[in-house]
Every structure is written in C-alpha cells, then in structure tokens.
C-alpha cells in the first residue's frame, strides 16, 4: 500500500491489482467481472493503469457501450434521398422473397457472422468466441430498458412480445425473461433452427419461434404488447420496411409499445425498383437500406401510435453521412387519447 501510495505521489507507473481490474469492469463496461479468474489474469497481464484503460477502451464491448467514440452526425445540409414509393403487393412479395432467399443462405453458410458482422463470428472461429457472441445480445435489451425508464414506461410481466428478425436467438435469450411470452420471428428457416437450439440450451421456455416468409404472415400473429427489432429492418428495401411496419403497428395492442431501429439517412442512397431488381436479385449480398424518419413517423401516426422517443443510435457505426435511429412509439387506447 505504501509503495503504491508513493508511486501515485510521484506520478510514476501505477501497479495494477485486482481491485483496479474490478473497478475497470465497473467503470468502462458497466458490469461486474465474469469471474475472479478473469480478474486475476488481467491483473497479472497488465502493468499500469494506462494499460488497463487502453485494454478496456479498445475492447469491442466498450465500443458497443459508447457507440464508436466518434460523432459524425449529419451536418443538416444533406440533400434528399431518392426513394421510389412501391405499393404493389406483388412487387413487395417479390422483394421479400429475394431477402428471404439471401438470408436463408446466410443461415446455412455464416449464421452468426450474418447477425453480427465481426470476423470473430465467422464459422471457423465462432466456437472459440461463442460466449462473447451470446453475451453481446444483452445490450439491446439494456437499451430497451433505458429507453423505457427515460420515458417513464415499463413492461408488464404479462406482456406478449414480438421480436422481428431474431436470427440465431442472440437477443431473444435476453428478451425472453422480460415478458410472459416471446414470439421470435425470422425470415430464415436456417437461422430459426439455430435459435431453437440456443434458446433450449438457455432454458428459455416461453419463446415461440415462427418463420415469417410473407408479409401477410404478420397478420397471423396474436395481438402483442411490445414490438422489438434491431439491426433487422435495415436489410430490407424501403417498400418492405414500410409494409412490415404498417402490419406490425396494426397488430399492436392499445397501449402497446414499438421499439425498433432503422437507418434513416445515408448520403447518396437511392432506391429505384427496376434498377434494384436488375442489380441485386440473386446476388446474395448483405444489403443496407434506409427509410426516412418522416415516413416512419407518418406510418406510425396513421396506425394511432404516438412518438415517444427518437434517438440516434450506434447500430450502423455512426459513419459520416449516415444516421441510424431507434424509435419508441406507443399505441393510443381505443378511446383515442394520447397516454400521458
């Protein structure tokens, strides 16, 4: 203790003991360490407080927590995007079939990497990093909790939740304990199969997995109290995002909450149906799309949902000229009033 006190006073390199490591977990990662073994290992491996800070602030978990560190929000002078308005149900079905084919293939070839595009989660290495993949789902539910708390809202223990695009069940495992029943949906049968195994292993017994392969399948969902979806809608062309949200909003119960993420601006983004069909169908790429805020707020308003919060989020990396938003809406009661 005396040695450490003296080294502080002299401003020299400070030794790292287990207490320092535990506090680094709390301060940088907002949680307790996984185990005392991890703490002991870290304390042995890292020699100084500066090293400890570097280690924690360059970790993926820290970056996820603080969202990349940079702040290249839009400057406000950005021009409009050209997005063709497609309403024809047969065209929307065609677009969705294309997305379903792409994602079913991802589910067969790179199921985990397709959910979180981090090299560690490629099939060759997922075995080694599976625990951190599974743990990464928690922050999505933490953000939901924080958004509800900021808005003075809470989720009833009786709530029925619908998750759109559950993938391999990464977030579902964290969301399931928050509701009475979770209906976790995906467009890809191959992802759903892995989700089934994962949720079984996690002991989540209140989850029903459903494949949504057509837009109309949304209408078969029972009425629900929470709609949850992050990093999913972005992979669908704007007419599909719009059609999904319209149907989801109409299935939401009075007083129900919709919490979801959609990229809302990207410099130079264009969606033109003919060009898209020509360039993208059958390519099997991971596509990134956007829908402007005003469209989302308009669709929600038409379904009787009130806007509670729009927050810029780090889900697409906060790159210059790009904006992703997380929305929280609440459906009005049948009496028509905004819930205060």
């Amino acid at each position, binding site marked *: 203790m005396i040695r450490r006190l003296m080294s502080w006073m002299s401003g020299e390199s400070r030794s790292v003991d287990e207490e320092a490591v535990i506090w680094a977990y709390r301060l940088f990662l907002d949680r307790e360490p996984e185990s005392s073994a991890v703490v002991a290992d870290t304390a042995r491996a890292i020699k100084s407080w500066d090293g400890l800070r570097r280690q924690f602030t360059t970790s993926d978990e820290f970056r996820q927590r603080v969202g990349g560190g940079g702040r290249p929000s839009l*400057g406000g002078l950005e021009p409009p995007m050209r997005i063709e308005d497609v309403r024809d149900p047969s065209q929307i079905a065609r677009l969705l079939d294309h997305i379903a084919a792409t994602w079913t293939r991802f589910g067969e070839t790179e199921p985990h990497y397709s959910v979180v595009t981090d090299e560690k989660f490629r099939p060759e290495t997922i075995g080694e990093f599976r625990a951190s993949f599974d743990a990464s789902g928690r922050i999505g539910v933490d953000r939901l909790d924080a958004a509800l708390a900021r808005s003075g809202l809470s989720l009833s223990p009786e709530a029925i939740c619908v998750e759109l695009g559950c993938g391999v069940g990464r977030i579902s495992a964290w969301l399931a304990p928050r509701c009475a029943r979770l209906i976790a949906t995906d467009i890809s049968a191959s992802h759903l199969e892995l989700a089934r195994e994962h949720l079984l292993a996690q002991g989540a017994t209140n989850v029903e997995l459903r494949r949504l392969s057509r837009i109309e399948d949304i209408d078969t969902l029972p009425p629900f109290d929470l709609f949850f979806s992050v990093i999913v809608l972005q992979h669908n062309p704007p007419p599909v995002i719009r059609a999904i949200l319209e149907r989801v909003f109409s299935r939401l119960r009075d007083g129900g909450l919709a919490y979801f993420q959609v990229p809302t601006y990207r410099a130079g983004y264009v969606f033109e149906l003919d060009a898209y069909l020509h360039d993208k169908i059958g390519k099997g790429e991971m596509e990134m799309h956007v829908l402007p805020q005003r469209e989302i707020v308009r669709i929600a308003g038409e379904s009787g949902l009130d806007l509670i919060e729009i927050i810029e989020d780090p889900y697409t990396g906060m790159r210059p000229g790009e904006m992703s938003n997380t929305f929280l809406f609440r459906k009005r009661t049948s009496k028509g009033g905004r819930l205060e």
Partner: protein
Amino acid sequence: MNDRSLDAPADAAAVRWAYRLVLGREPENEEAVRAHVARGTTLAQLREAFLGSHEFRVKVRGVAPPPPTGLEPPLAIDRADEGALRDRLFRHIAKSWSHYGNTEPHWSVLTFDQYRNERLHENLDAFNASGQVTVNRFLATLVRNGIMFPANAHCIELGCGVGRLTRWLAPHARAVTALDVSPGHLALAKEHVGKYASNVEFRQLRSLEDLDALPPAEVFFTFLVLQHNPPPVIESILDRIFARLTPGAIAYFHLPTYIPGYRFSIDAYLCEREDELGMEMHALPRRDVFRIAERHGVETLEVLNEATKELMLADYFLMRKR
C-alpha cells in the same frame, strides 16, 4: 466479489477509481471526492460523467464528444404547470438576458471571446455573416424532407438577439415577427436588420402571455434560444407557439434534449438561481416535445442530432402542423 448496483450511490472509493482509471490521475484533492459523494450520484451517473468528460475525451482518448449510447438514464425534471410559477421563471430569465443586452450583447449570442465588446469592432462582419449557415441548414432541411418554404409566410423568430439570423431569414418570408426579452438586444437588432430588410417587426416579449397575442404564423424558427430557459418555460413557449401556427405551418427549432447529469428541481433552482444573473443551459426530453406537439396536431418530420462540441445532446426538430 461483491456486486454493486449501478443505482447505488457512488462512494469515495468509486470516485477515486474513476479518477485513476478513467482520467489516469488522482483527484485534485479530497474536496473533489467529497463533492461527488455529497451529490449522491449513482455509479451509473458517475461513470457517465467521467466517460463523457472533456478531460477523458480530449486528453485521454483524443476523441469527439460521445454519441448517445441509448443507455442514458432519465433526467430528473420537476414539472411546473402552474402559470404563476412559469411567469416567475420567465421573469428571471428575462432579467438575465436584459442584463446581457446592456453589457455583452454579441458575446451573449455567440460565446466566443472575439465577440466580446472590446474585440467586437474587428470581428463584427464575421459575427453577422455567421447566421447564414443556420438559415441554410433550415432551408436544406425543408428540401431534404420534400417540403417548400410556405409562400407568403409570416414567420415568428423567437429570441432574435441582435438579429444575426433575422437578416438571413427575412428574405424568405412575407413578414417576420422577431421576438426577444431583452430591449438592449432588440435595439441593436433593429439597427442591424434595418439595413437589409423592411419586413421585420421587432417585439419585446414581456411575458409568456404575449405569445398568445401573436398573429397566426406559417413558420416558427428559433436557434440557441430555448436552451437558456428552464424546462417549464420551454414547455410553455412551445405550447403557446404551436397554438399560433396555421394548418400546414412549419416549426424548425433547436433544443437540447439530454444533458448528462442534468436535473431541474424547482425549489433548488429558485433558491440557488433566482437572484443570480447568468447564462443557464437547460434541456427538455424529446418525449415532452412530442407530447406538446401532439396536443396541437403538430407532427414530427425530422429530429437531427446536432454535431455539438458541448457535452450534451441537442436536436434540430422539423415539425409541421396538420
């Protein structure tokens, strides 16, 4: 290993470790530690304050301001719906700003040292030109959202100050009513804008009720103004202005919606601030803005985070009355 709740108050050990690990140094003195503990901040708030601090961002990591993480806790903001109390808060703000109007009118609008009185003469042109980009941002926002500046618009500008923005806004409108609480600012605005535009009426805002007497408007515009008012005053202003908008009217306004650690307690505020003249920074959460807008049939078209260098989240709102 003892689990600590993030909601538990941070003790002296937590504060010391935040200094050491986040900032890489010991606290300045014991007083600094005691002050944190006495404030009753939770571990989550402590974490947020240190990771969001200027020192951590610039000295330690060399990065830009933190983005919203989505994990921000709620702000503790007292509501004050009582008219008399809101009027009292308004009078306090009007007093501070009238004082600035007589002492540092330009610097109070843009708080850079070059706009203080003693250096203003060499920087006045730059000051006056600086308003153009904000008006351009407003126009670009309309274009981005596919809407036109309403034709023959009567435009309400709240907090015109010395007319820095008014001059650039006026050519787009049929008429502008430029409001400010400070007679000193208004006199300078009249002189400055008078050189460029003849369609601007300057009015001193003496009370919140004055807003109810404004002629109906097609455009509401305000920038760097609402932030200087306590939340109940911001609420009252938005409520009254939205009521003055005509169907199809546009509202474009700038407002901080989240400041880490911000709280507004009426009793504490009246006790500590009411007799002080000063520049205050306040925030109103988005949900309150949307709630007030909805009451008047005002719909949200865009909410854009400002790329601020300050440690707060401020938004540009574009709204339209149905």
